């Protein structure tokens, strides 16, 4: 499967990563090798097989609707790179 530099650009955008023009070629090659290898899965007939996202047949795990609320704002913001007025601060999101 051919992985183009455009694909790398697209995937990097989805992952919110920037890749330089110089890196693209190498990354494309690595990904191409890896994805080619992954395609050996196609040799296995999976017709009618149910995709398995959970290994164990556990279900219906719930908690009751009970409030245990402490105001931990100070702790929550402790690791924030930038904060203001009790909130996390980011560059303006609208123009």
């Amino acid at each position, binding site marked *: 499967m051919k992985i183009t530099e455009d694909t790398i650009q*697209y995937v990097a*955008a*989805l992952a*919110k990563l920037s890749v330089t023009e110089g890196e693209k070629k190498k990354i494309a090659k690595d990904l191409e090798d890896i994805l080619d290898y992954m395609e050996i899965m196609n040799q296995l007939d999976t017709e009618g097989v149910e995709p398995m*996202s*959970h290994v164990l047949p*556990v*279900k*219906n*795990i*719930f*908690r*009751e*609707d*009970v*409030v*245990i*609320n*402490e*105001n*931990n*704002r100070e702790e*929550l*913001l402790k690791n924030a790179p*930038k904060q*203001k*007025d*009790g*909130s*996390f*601060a*980011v*560059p*303006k*999101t*609208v*123009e």
Partner: protein
Amino acid sequence: MKAYETVIGLEVHVELATKSKIFCSCTTLFGGDPNTHCCPVCTGMPGTLPVLNKQVVEYAIAAGLALNCSITRRCKFDRKNYFYPDLPKAYQISQLYLPICRDGGIEIETSAGKKTVRIHEIHMEEDAGKLIHDPWEDCTLVDYNRCGVPLIEIVSEPDMRSAEEVVAYLEKLRLILQYLGVSDCKMQEGSLRADINLSVREVGAIELGTRTEMKNMNSFKAIARAIEGERKRQIELLEYGKCVVQETRRWDDNKDTSFAMRSKEDAQDYRYFPEPDLLPIEISDEWLETIRSRQPELRDDKMLRYEKEFDIPSYDASIITGSKHLADLFEETVAICKKPKEVSNWLMVETMRLLKEQEMEAEDINFSPDHLAKLIEMVDQNKINRTVAKEVFEKIFKENIDPEEYVDKHGLGMVSDDGLLRSTIEKVIADNPQSVTDYKGGKSKAMGFLVGQTMKEMKGKADPGMVNQIVKELLDK
């Protein structure tokens, strides 16, 4: 100009009335200082994990049943991946592959008649946080209090053709959900929000036109205006031979126009996949039956019952049941004083007048059924007259005062002391010789004037029956 048809589908987000959030034990209370209703789980701290609130599932099932959906007996959650500061995990836990309810519908009624709006699906998901744009500094502040508040998203089929139908659908939806108790559906607090998918096509065309999605709808009025505006915009484009672009638009109700939201830097590719941190939900027959058996009486049934059981006009029944809160108030008051017609009267006339005057919604009514019931009793027992009762009711409506205490404190009890009334009326007659002459000359209206003057003199507290009787007696002497 060609004839066009508007095709509308809605995605309605409803915040559920649970006490705690969908995946953690934080409160869902509206408001609060920024980031005070939060914990490591709902703020997406590394290593934390979600645990599903059972009540969310039960509310979603209750909504599905009331909206005539089939319930997906084995459903699960998926992750929707995108970056935005209001989404701390950079994915929203939602449902794509197996939503909890599918294939439902409700009947609406408009001037064009009755029709069914089909519901494609209902899925459960978590709400995002709130962004506050700092006016003084070039930054946006992120408040995660709303983050993780449970939502159901109700997705309709594109079955609506006008703003009127959309509003009828939303009204109906709101009433059903309020009656179920699954949501308060307060639009101004964002607990009911609608995204509008709208396209136009030539009448008779089979293919749907290209649709736009409008967000940011915070009132029925804005929705109606936005639909009208967008319909016109799309028709104009087509008339000029241009194309409608599939995009998300933001309705600005102040400017009465919509804007294309800045197209996201990247293509939208949400990369949904099954949420590995949550396990599948299996809804057994027993569970479903338990929820079904708990379903309350919904509006349509309640309306019919009021007409039959309380013998009130269907118009009144429809107004009272038009708000769950009002209906509850009605039933609770009737349960105390056993006078449905009286209660209905107070709600239909005085309450409606005051709501309009105060620009309030029925949901905001704040007085207790005890106080209204007591007021009705007091009138019935001639403890106060109707004029005073209206005045007292206004106090009840505004401040939820106890009418008995209030009447006592302000000396508003009805005066039926014959001597006092007689001497007051004699004075009124003496002061108004012209009216006496008019009366004697056959103008019976003059008596009304004298009664009114007496009531005024008595500050409205006089027993009106006795005043009438004494005025007449003295005039006819």
